[in-house]
């Protein structure tokens, strides 16, 4: 006999874990399927954990969650060829009992989350790839087929948390393949190093952490960003650009990462560290306009598979956890009310999302992806001109300051023209408002 569950969750990342935990906590019969050898085996994140969303699901997560460092300083750097200009925000107020952001090593978090799920009775099976959704004559999703023998499993509702590739939704015709300008490819490495060196180089103590978000010449004019994060005994460094830009074939992603590691500003920070793993992953970057259909008869899609990523603020895992939780809450409410899981009732999931920061934030920045994609000057000309302006301004060479101001302005006008500069300012405002 084929086994039947209240809900099947596909994938053991932040969205799938949030959904499974929330369902199991309310005593629903839930099955979570993960294709990796263990939870986290297929998952890649920068990574920063935003505490607030996890706290909503597991209030006392700080008791045993294996975080790395709590972030007390955020740096944002614009890199030129051999220089950088940047802004830092550091606050002692971040040294609290309940920090807001932590650096993490993703596999550790996923394993921990899975243990929490099992502890409250959630059933999780790894090493199982879902090959297709099972649908009845009316098209309603009623279960999944897996690559295990006799691998058919039925459920009232299926929550797809299978990540950015979202193969199941695409194969079933619920989603189209992502356009190359709507996804980024990011590569990263984890570099192990003496914690004392981390503390010295970044000016921190104990479990304090620093994160650096990077833009500029390192992406070679492509639309993209880079990062360097401090973990307890390691650093993670990565870089990502839109696939539509990589597609032009000018630079392999690993070469771009190597050039970042050798940048004169970055190199001294990572010197002597030992590389232990190299990862690659796609990131949904299309924002609000790229969000696919989120629910239908017997199914919902959450997390990266639903394109929930706020590129402007580098938030993804919190949107993932929020969407997983809201999908689960929808199931719990419908079940309690004795209602079916047809599209009409599952629309509640979208309503919850619309009312939350998930959709509100993505909507706010809806013009950003398109504007960035078609205005490469933000990633080429401006990093050049801004760092050169800083170089000129801070070099003391007996040139009077008014002449320096004029030279800097002239350089910008030469590169972008007056209309270009005004246009760019308008575009930035449109992208951010």
């Amino acid at each position, binding site marked *: 006999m084929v086994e039947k569950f209240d809900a099947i969750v596909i994938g053991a990342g932040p969205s799938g874990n949030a959904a499974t935990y929330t369902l199991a906590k309310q005593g629903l019969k839930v099955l979570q399927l993960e*294709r*990796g*050898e*263990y939870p*986290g*085996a*297929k*998952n*890649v*994140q920068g*990574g920063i954990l935003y505490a607030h969303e996890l706290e909503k699901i597991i209030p006392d997560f700080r008791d045993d969650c294996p975080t790395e460092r709590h972030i007390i300083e955020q740096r944002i750097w614009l890199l030129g060829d051999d220089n950088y200009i940047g802004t830092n925000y550091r606050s002692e107020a971040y040294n609290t009992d309940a920090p807001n952001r932590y650096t993490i*090593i*993703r*596999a*550790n978090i*996923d394993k921990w989350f899975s243990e929490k799920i099992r502890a409250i009775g959630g059933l999780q099976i*790894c*090493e*199982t*790839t879902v090959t297709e959704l099972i649908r009845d004559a009316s098209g309603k999703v009623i279960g999944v087929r*897996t*690559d*295990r023998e006799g691998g058919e499993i039925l459920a009232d509702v299926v929550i797809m948390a299978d990540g*950015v*590739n979202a*193969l199941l939704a695409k194969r079933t015709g619920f989603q189209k*393949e*992502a356009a*190359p300008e709507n*996804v980024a*490819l990011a*590569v990263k*490495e*984890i570099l192990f190093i003496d914690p004392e060196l981390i503390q010295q180089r970044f000016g921190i103590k104990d479990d304090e952490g620093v994160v650096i978000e990077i833009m500029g010449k390192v992406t070679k004019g492509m639309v993209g960003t880079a990062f360097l994060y401090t973990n307890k005994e*390691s650093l993670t460094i990565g870089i990502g650009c839109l*696939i539509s830009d*990589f*597609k*032009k*074939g*000018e*630079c*392999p*992603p*690993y*070469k771009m990462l*190597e*050039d970042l590691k*050798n940048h004169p500003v970055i190199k001294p920070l990572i010197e002597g560290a030992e*590389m*232990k*793993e*190299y*990862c*690659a*992953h*796609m990131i949904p970057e299309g924002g609000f306009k790229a969000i696919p259909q989120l629910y239908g008869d017997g199914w919902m899609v959450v997390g990266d598979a639903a394109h929930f990523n706020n590129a402007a603020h580098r938030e993804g895992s919190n949107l993932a956890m929020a969407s997983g939780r809201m999908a689960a809450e929808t199931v719990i409410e419908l079940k309690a009310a004795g209602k079916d899981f047809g599209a009409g009732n599952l629309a509640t999931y979208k309503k919850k999302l619309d009312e939350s920061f998930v959709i509100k934030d993505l909507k706010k920045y809806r013009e950003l992806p398109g504007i960035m994609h078609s205005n490469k000057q933000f990633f080429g000309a401006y990093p050049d001109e801004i760092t050169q302006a800083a170089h000129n301004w801070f070099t003391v060479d007996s040139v009077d300051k008014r002449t320096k101001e004029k030279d800097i302005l002239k350089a910008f006008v030469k590169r972008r023209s007056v209309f270009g500069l005004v246009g760019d300012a308008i575009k930035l405002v449109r992208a951010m408002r």
Partner: protein
Amino acid sequence: MNMMVKIEEKLYQNRYIVDENRPHIRIKDEAHCAACTSKACTVCCPAGCYSTNEAGGVTLATDGCLECGTCRVICQDSGNIEWDYPRGGYGISYKFG
């Protein structure tokens, strides 16, 4: 600065559980690759799985694949890449991710 980057040295650090003789990605029509002028897959793949061969076509070796999906996205218009997840438990197994 302008050194050659050996992707093999990076991949060497990773843990893979290889599903022998069952590649999860397949080039459907080799002639299409031979005629492709950009061969973007040979540059974009972060694991260097795609390389140009002597016959002017593209050779795919999936053993180092990181399962990112980039090749499928860049080659979607042709539909020449058949892209599946590996069987459960196989493929890249990130220790840190």
